[in-house]
């Protein structure tokens, strides 16, 4: 699986804001790159992304050609009337894209969300090597 081309220098604790993406965002809120672990097993590739504040209903996973895009929308906290006193992070949505190689069985991608963490299972296509007999003529 090819990863993002851009080499992301993620800082240890701060959220990384999406700087440039293919499409302009239509929402006024910032979007962050969810910190993700990606690992490969024998039969699948697993993406684990930290998206605190996102529930299963507000995560959107789209697959267009070979690009898998994760969008997580955070329901804004009602903070009318509150004065910020100390601010370390900003609330915002999450967005990240990955390009998939052909070895992923795109019809069998599974995703589940637990405690603000998205687990994405990308099963590999079973071995489809065919031997082609070469005839001598």
């Amino acid at each position, binding site marked *: 699986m090819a990863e993002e081309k851009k080499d992301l220098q993620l800082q240890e*604790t701060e959220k990384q804001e999406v700087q440039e993406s293919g499409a302009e965002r239509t929402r006024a809120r910032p979007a962050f790159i969810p910190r993700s672990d990606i690992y490969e097993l024998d039969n699948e590739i697993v993406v684990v992304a*930290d998206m605190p*504040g996102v529930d299963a209903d507000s995560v959107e996973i789209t697959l267009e050609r070979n690009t898998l895009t994760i969008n997580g929308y955070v329901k804004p906290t009602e903070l009318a009337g*509150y004065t910020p006193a100390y601010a370390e992070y900003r609330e915002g949505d999450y967005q990240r894209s990955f390009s998939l190689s052909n070895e992923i069985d795109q019809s069998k991608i599974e995703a589940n969300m637990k*405690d603000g963490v998205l687990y994405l299972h990308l099963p590999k296509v079973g071995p489809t090597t065919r031997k082609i007999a070469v005839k001598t003529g």
Partner: protein
Amino acid sequence: MAITDLIPWNRGKRQIQVQREERDPFLAFQHDLNRLFDDFWGGSWLTPYGASEREWSKFSPQIDVVETDTEVKVQTELPGLEEKDFEVSVSQDTLTIRGEKKQEKEEKGRNYYRAERSYGWFQREISLPRNVDTDQVSAEFSKGVLTISLPKVAAQEDRKKVVVKAK
């Protein structure tokens, strides 16, 4: 001056708008320092036993604090944790959130392409204003976000006015 006065509880309060880190490098630096101190005093190396299980950790949750006249609300992002993985305690003037973000069991045959998520033991301390009612604190954890509500008691005047009689 008490040591607690150094903790930037009052920073940016009232009229002055809170500056977000990316706009103000000095505030970012201040935050880094605060976290450094948090890590230092909450760090595992001070406890001689148990240090081995509490690894030096990279995970340090970020905290937002907002307030009204009647309530202080503390929010922190703890993705991947469950209620049992952390504890919230409150003393007279300090709110402590501590816990451990456990690494999932490392299975053999995992070939990592990217490992950006961090794990480990953490402790954050937030100094509270004096008028918080520490008996009425409530906390809620949902979707990886912890929200702690600390109601304020009616403002008690610490200082009393002394009537000066003229002779």
